[in-house]
């Protein structure tokens, strides 16, 4: 199979050349961050590391880590490394202050991010002759903007659909003969099911490839989507903290995602000791932004459990490969592509006058995440009127939607009815079996 690359020189660069490139970039980047981000300068000073100590990528381990807690402490401008007048865009995760990540981009940052997404599209077989339907959400979420930009760079005809309105998605797909679909895997599966219901066979659907990410999905789900849509389905990885989708992407081999390591350097660490682990070890994935200007996170702990591999890939790319994340080191859930922390649910309950006795139940039915929250009724709230209790459930669901950006189904349940193990309530029941 002939291979196409968006930036062949980088994507097939020898390991030594890549290391040289990364080393040049990190020396500059550390200096930039040290001089412009007092928050990180303090962390380096505390650790007794000076920019001069970083002479190349092999010295990276000397630098302090950044975590979600740092992002919280520094919100919103504390990790900004460029004057706001040089920034052209922000993107943000859902959630309230503290949990919300707001990332800043200069034009240079947008460009490199879009390059990364373009590499993913080309790796999935995309060329300027393709029609690329972007059905990720547009807006603060990075999914829509990232793939949209990547699609432009490749020169595809871009359909900026955003997510939802499935009937319209299908009409455009058919009328404009879309060949590449970008969205969350669960939405791809949903579109697939809808097409099937409307009587389409895989051969009637013009699509040839899909680029799906922003939430965990299984090999089984991949096979299902590939079958119903008659396409090859490619995984893509990213997080708002680093830029968005395109930090890593899958190639024709479909055995892990190539990390765009000329921009984002990946390490695997022991989550307990922080020690860097050798290639092939399972541990926490850490990313360093090598050349982003506005929001350059150094050694950012993703909390994703992962493995890196440098085994030769049949696609010809030499970029290091990361496995699909195998879990989390914290209690974060990804539901319908949105990051959800149980503590957010707790915050809503306390604010609305409930005890923090709840249980989150997540499942995947027909390839779509279901999200239910059981909350124990309190003596103060209890009434003899059904309509009042239903209104309470609705009000709670609304408050959670405002906090999380996605709508849960809230069930008020009897006191002490939530399962407790060893006296502690079981907060999360995830039946999706994603790992």
């Amino acid at each position, binding site marked *: 199979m002939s291979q196409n690359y968006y930036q062949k020189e980088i994507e097939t660069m020898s390991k030594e050349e890549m290391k040289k490139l990364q080393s040049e970039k990190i020396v500059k980047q550390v200096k930039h961050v040290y001089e412009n981000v007092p928050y990180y300068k303090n962390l380096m000073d505390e650790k007794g590391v000076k920019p001069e100590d970083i002479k190349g990528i092999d010295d990276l381990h000397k630098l302090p880590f950044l975590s979600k807690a740092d992002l919280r402490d520094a919100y919103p401008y504390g990790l900004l490394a460029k004057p706001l007048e040089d920034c052209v865009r922000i993107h943000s995760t859902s959630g309230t202050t503290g949990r919300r990540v707001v990332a800043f981009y200069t034009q240079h940052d947008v460009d490199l991010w879009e390059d990364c997404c373009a590499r993913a599209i080309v790796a999935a077989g995309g060329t300027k002759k393709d029609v690329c339907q972007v059905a990720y959400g547009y807006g603060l979420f990075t999914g829509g903007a990232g793939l949209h930009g990547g699609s432009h760079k490749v020169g595809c005809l871009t359909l900026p659909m955003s997510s939802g309105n499935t009937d319209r998605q299908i009409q455009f797909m058919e009328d404009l003969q879309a060949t590449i679909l970008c969205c969350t895997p669960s939405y791809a599966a949903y579109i697939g099911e809808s097409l099937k219901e409307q009587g389409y066979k895989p051969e009637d659907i013009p699509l040839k490839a899909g680029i799906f990410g922003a939430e965990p999905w299984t090999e089984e789900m991949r096979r299902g989507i590939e079958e119903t849509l008659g396409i090859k389905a490619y995984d893509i990885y990213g997080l708002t903290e680093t830029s968005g989708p395109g930090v890593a992407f899958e190639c024709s081999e479909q055995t892990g995602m190539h990390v765009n390591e000329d921009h984002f350097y990946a390490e695997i660490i022991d989550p307990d000791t922080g020690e860097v682990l050798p290639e092939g070890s399972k541990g926490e994935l850490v990313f360093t932004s090598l050349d982003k200007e506005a929001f350059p996170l150094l050694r950012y702990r993703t909390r994703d459990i992962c493995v890196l591999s440098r085994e030769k890939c049949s696609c010809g790319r030499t970029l290091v490969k990361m496995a699909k994340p195998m879990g989390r080191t914290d209690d974060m859930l990804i539901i319908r592509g949105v990051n959800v922390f149980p503590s957010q649910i707790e915050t809503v309950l306390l604010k609305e006058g409930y005890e923090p006795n709840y249980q989150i139940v997540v499942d995947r039915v027909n390839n779509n995440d279901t999200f239910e929250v059981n909350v124990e009724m309190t*003596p103060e709230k*209890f009434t*003899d009127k059904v309509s009042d209790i239903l209104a309470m459930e609705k009000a709670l669901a609304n408050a959670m939607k405002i906090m999380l950006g996605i709508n849960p189904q809230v069930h008020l*349940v009897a*006191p002490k*009815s939530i399962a407790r193990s060893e006296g502690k309530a079981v907060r999360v029941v995830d039946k999706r079996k994603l790992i």
Partner: protein
Amino acid sequence: MSIKQLTVFVENKQGAVIPITDILSENNINIRALSIAETQDFGILRLIVNDVVAAEKLLTEAGYLIKVTDVVGVKIGDAPGKLTEALKILSENKINLEYLYAFMARTERHAYVVLRVEDNDLAKRALTTSGFHIITEADVDKL
């Protein structure tokens, strides 16, 4: 002049009401009337019993969520059209009815209706003026 209704939050699962009626029977508390409203998630059991104070205490101790509400009990002649008559009076007086349920007395040829309205006094006045008999806690004991 109002009667007390006991409301119990029950889980919507098989046999959920049994432990409640068990506790009441073990303690010699008689159920005069009952109604269950259920949703997909939960049930709301409403009871008129002969000893509200004891029932509330026992069920609360057993871990149930209990709410005691004043409701209006009205005696209705055991003949077609009598209930409509009472309901029309509420409607004419713009009294919003939340729910109702009925029960029969053991001895007399009368039905009783439990009415849950926003304003008990208003409902009682309107019904009494029209000749309806409102029952009291003492009546409940004797039924």
